[in-house]
């Protein structure tokens, strides 16, 4: 892992991967959306509102997966103090927050025709809302730490990283909330060993999941490259200013 944590080596790999992940992600997402909207059958109980699942479920998976990535990067930044890990955490947080927000809003739009209400204080919904607050809290703390450093150059503050690690406790709560409590939200339809979903519905679901994941990766790489470029610019400006001082 340390071999890839070298910024120069990372940039060489990221320059190749960024367009590949983004373009492949856009293609898979477009296919998933087209099939999800127009070429998949309606559900015998939910009717056409089942189509919302093809964007809601991948967004939910990426919200949790993104937060796990944020926490892992924060853990690496705290233990090994590697700046690239801090940059990765900073890059993941807003994208994870976006997917969490998409998950909450699309879930709410699915809830109205299915449950008769946009929102209930159900364990799954509430724990997802807490995840969004954790992402926003991380972004606020990270922004405050960066401002303290004067902007541009990276500040290795611990507060945001500790918040990200503490927030990991929410992930098993999200996952098992539908089993631990009697929730309005249904239990898992797909596990590692079996699926309760018809194959005609699995295709748009997995296309969207693959597309969203690749786009997530592409956008995180773009944001990491942005942070690295800004750090390099700030460092050069500082050295130039010191030379003329």
């Amino acid at each position: 892992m340390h071999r890839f944590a070298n910024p120069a080596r990372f940039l060489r790999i990221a320059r190749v991967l960024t367009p590949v992940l983004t373009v492949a992600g856009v293609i898979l997402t477009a296919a998933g959306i087209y099939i999800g909207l127009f070429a998949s059958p309606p559900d015998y109980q939910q009717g056409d509102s089942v189509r919302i699942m093809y964007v809601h479920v991948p967004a939910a998976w990426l919200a949790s997966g993104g937060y796990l990535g944020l926490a892992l990067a924060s853990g690496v930044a705290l233990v090994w103090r590697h700046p690239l890990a801090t940059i990765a955490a900073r890059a993941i947080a807003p994208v994870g927050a976006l997917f969490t927000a998409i998950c909450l809003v699309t879930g709410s739009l699915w809830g109205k025709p299915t449950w008769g209400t946009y929102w209930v204080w159900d364990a799954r919904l509430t724990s997802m809302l807490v995840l969004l607050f954790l992402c926003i809290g991380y972004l606020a703390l990270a922004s405050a730490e960066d401002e303290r450093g004067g902007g541009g150059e990276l500040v290795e503050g611990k507060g945001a990283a500790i918040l990200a690690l503490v927030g990991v406790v929410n992930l098993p709560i999200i996952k098992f909330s539908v089993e631990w409590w009697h929730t309005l939200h249904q239990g898992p339809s797909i596990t590692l060993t079996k699926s309760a979903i018809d194959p005609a519905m699995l295709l748009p679901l997995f296309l969207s999941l693959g597309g969203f994941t690749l786009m997530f990766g592409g956008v995180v790489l773009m944001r990491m490259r942005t942070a690295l470029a800004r750090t390099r610019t700030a460092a050069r400006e500082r050295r130039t200013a010191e030379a003329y001082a």
Partner: protein
Amino acid sequence: MIHAEFVYPSYLLTVAGLVGVTVWSLIAMRRAEAAAARERRR
């Protein structure tokens, strides 16, 4: 389509979010890397 008033806004919001974050990140990356290249040439 039945429930179109819920299905289409869900897709619209998702696509807007994905396109928005991708374009925003791409523009920010291009600008930052161009600024870094200018600074290196100085």
